[in-house]
């Protein structure tokens, strides 16, 4: 029985080591994120390039959004899934996200983190997960831990590279450029949409669209 006790002790030590390793891997991540499976399922199989979702298509629909914006969250939850299923998955349109910072300072690191996730092909997973796990605007919830947790759940494979990319001047500059672009298009709220197709002269502002039907109609009209 002494041998049995020794075996039990050894086994318990091994389990403890495994648990410590498992926990150390997820340090810095809030694991109680909402809708991780739902988002990853919604986007599964759709190619991503930067913050563009879907393969090259005649129609490009651009969302100028602020990741902290509750209206953007509502559109992401209620309207986007239908549009992605009906127009993006089949290649009729390509969706693109561009940061339009209007809520506050925390939106900039959030947007840069999305850009960095996009560099590894998981930008839309990050964006959709961010929307679904938003906190109160500018309440300090956009922490490194929160962003890291989102990136891991979004499937970003190289977190160290993502950390470097999101903190780079280039990512921050991209957020600022797209915000200026949205201002230039005359937008004053988020989410605002613009469309580009062979029939338009560059990006054509559409404004606020909030339903799948409205978004589909915009895509169909541009074709």
């Amino acid at each position, binding site marked *: 029985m002494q*041998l049995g006790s020794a075996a039990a002790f050894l086994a*318990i030590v091994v389990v403890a080591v495994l648990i410590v390793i498992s926990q150390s891997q997820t340090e810095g991540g809030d694991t109680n994120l909402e809708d*991780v499976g739902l988002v990853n399922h919604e986007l599964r199989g759709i190619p991503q390039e930067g913050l563009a979702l879907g393969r090259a298509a005649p129609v490009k629909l651009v969302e100028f959004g602020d990741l902290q914006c509750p209206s953007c969250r509502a559109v992401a939850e209620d309207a986007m899934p239908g549009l992605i299923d009906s127009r993006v998955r089949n290649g009729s349109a390509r969706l693109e996200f561009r940061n339009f910072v209007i809520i506050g300072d925390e939106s900039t690191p959030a947007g840069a983190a999305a850009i960095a996730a996009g560099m590894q092909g998981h930008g839309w997973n990050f964006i959709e997960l961010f929307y679904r796990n938003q906190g109160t605007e500018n309440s300090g919830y956009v922490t490194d831990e929160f962003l890291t947790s989102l990136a891991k759940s979004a499937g970003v494979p190289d977190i160290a590279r993502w950390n470097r990319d999101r903190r780079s001047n280039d990512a921050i500059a991209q957020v600022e450029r797209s915000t200026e672009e949205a201002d230039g298009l005359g937008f004053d709220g988020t989410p605002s949409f613009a469309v580009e197709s062979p029939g338009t002269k560059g990006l054509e502002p559409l404004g606020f669209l909030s339903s799948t039907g409205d978004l589909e109609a915009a895509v169909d009209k541009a074709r």
Partner: protein
Amino acid sequence: MEAALKQLRAPAEATLQRASAFGAAFGIGIATYIALSAAAGDAPACIDGSHGCLTVAESSYSHLLGINVAVFGIAGYAVLLVVAMMRGDAARLTGFALGLIGFGFSVYLTYLELFAIDAICQWCVASAIVMTVVFAINTTRMMRYVGTET
């Protein structure tokens, strides 16, 4: 009657070995399905069509040192299968220790599903149940037969 009860309390070692081997083989099947699904970039299909299996498969806890946890499961069950077919105290003690490791880690993973990941993967639960049964069998084998002749 008393003899029958004794029989129930202490099944023949060969019976325990067969039961453990069967459980381990069953466990290999479950863990292999989970690992193959992950290797294909997918997740095991939850029987009720829920997203629980996908959520668990895509959580950061699904990998240990970069290796899918299911692969560790396959290895553990494989060794349990081998020791179930072997005789002697070394096999009895190894089966018990591995069963305890598998059981302990299964409890931890189930805790994560319930309280950290907030999703249940039916395949993982099935594996945890199988591991619990295999652990119970190997514990019985160790307690009853260590120190006895093979």
